[in-house]
């Protein structure tokens, strides 16, 4: 079964450092997403991406964050200058179509990248 893969599984970084989290979405999917989950809290939407541009983003996704699909297979999340409060599990997801379409809007999530900012 095709799956979304994420690297690294765990990254520890110093506050102020740049971090890039990588994702390989399912190959025929068109929509890509990043979510995060702070330990013990709910899953939070960060950004969605379609046709090489951001389609929606949350208030969490400020100027410190950026996303890119550099080569047609990878989908990356960059945090320019990490803060302590960026420590969380970051999930990448992809879907073939939008989430509202029955049977085809399912989002497939990766296993996550745990980011620890010291």
């Amino acid at each position, binding site marked *: 079964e095709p799956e*979304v893969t994420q690297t690294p599984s765990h990254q520890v970084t110093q506050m102020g450092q740049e971090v890039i989290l990588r994702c390989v979405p399912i190959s025929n999917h068109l*929509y890509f*997403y990043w*979510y995060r989950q702070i330990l013990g809290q*709910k*899953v*939070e*939407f960060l950004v*969605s991406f*379609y046709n090489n541009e951001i*389609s*929606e983003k949350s208030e969490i996704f400020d100027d410190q964050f950026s996303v890119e699909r550099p080569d047609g297979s990878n989908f990356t999340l960059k945090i320019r200058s990490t803060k302590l409060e960026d420590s969380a*599990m970051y*999930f990448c*997801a992809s*879907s073939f179509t*939008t*989430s*509202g*379409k*029955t*049977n085809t*809007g*399912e*989002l*497939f*999530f*990766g*296993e*996550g990248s*745990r980011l620890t900012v010291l």
Partner: protein
Amino acid sequence: LAKTTQPISMDSYEGQEVNITCSHNNIATNDYITWYQQFPSQGPRFIIQGYKTKVTNEVASLFIPADRKSSTLSLPRVSLSDTAVYYCLYVKGGATNKLIFGTGTLLAVQP
């Protein structure tokens, strides 16, 4: 924002049927109801999606009454491995590509 209400936690025993109800009083005409499951330290996983009446797949059933202001996820004969957080969400038909997760229901299945 889409707002759903579901119990914070539920307990069950192996082999029992579990029904988790979610209320979504502000659901709009073109919204779909979707349920996801999340195990600890894993990404959420799609379970089932529906618009009205009943939908069944190999994992669960979803019951949606005529007014669509609530929905019930039914898990037949749960096992220990069904212990997880279950999220009820609703999404705009074709108009958005994001999911907004609530706090979910932590289902604990005991032997």
